[in-house]
């Protein structure tokens, strides 16, 4: 295999692996759930993107034609990771998971829990 192709694949793979590891270290190190939600949902998506790009380059070089079906997983994860993070944050807010002491605007959480969806007038009378 060509040296420069090998170098490119190695750099992409190691970049991806470092991002995944940083996301998991953030999951352990950070203080409360709302902060902890930040680390894996961003870092692992980026890290997996690096590993998938490396895999794409490797498979394209090995087979001699361009293979882009790894982009399918990247597209799927880029669409679904924010949805998962949003649902988990909503669950945490409604279950009143405790926050850090110096969280700003924490008093708005109780207001937000009382809010209804627009057009939902079932319980208002």
């Amino acid at each position, binding site marked *: 295999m060509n040296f420069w192709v090998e170098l490119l*694949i190695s750099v992409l793979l190691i970049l991806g692996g470092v991002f995944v590891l940083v996301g998991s270290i953030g999951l352990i190190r950070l203080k409360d*759930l709302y902060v902890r939600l930040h680390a894996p949902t961003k870092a692992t998506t980026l890290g997996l993107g690096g590993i998938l790009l490396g895999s794409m380059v490797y498979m394209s070089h090995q087979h001699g034609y361009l293979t882009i079906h790894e982009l399918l997983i990247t597209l799927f994860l880029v669409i679904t990771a924010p949805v998962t993070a949003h649902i988990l944050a909503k669950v945490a807010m409604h279950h009143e998971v405790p926050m850090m002491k110096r969280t700003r605007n924490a008093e708005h959480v109780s207001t937000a829990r009382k809010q209804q969806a627009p057009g939902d007038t079932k319980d208002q009378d």
Partner: protein
Amino acid sequence: MLEWSMIAVGVMLCVALFLNLWRLLIGPHVVDRILALDTMYINSIALILLYGMYNGTQLYFEAALLIAMLGFVSSVAFGKYLLRGDIIE
């Protein structure tokens, strides 16, 4: 060089999976455990793709795609259950 970097990335991914497992075990609230499980899904996709690259085959791609879809659906189902008390209303 490529083989060594693949092994190094595999070690990094395994360490990341163990850290996620630790959070899954100690997580103070159930939402922490769901978040750790979702992260474990994503990291195992990366590990399976890396194993497919190491063997030079594309057979593992479909497995990775399946795990990605199942991970998303299961995380959303856990979230909906905790939020509404039911998954499909």
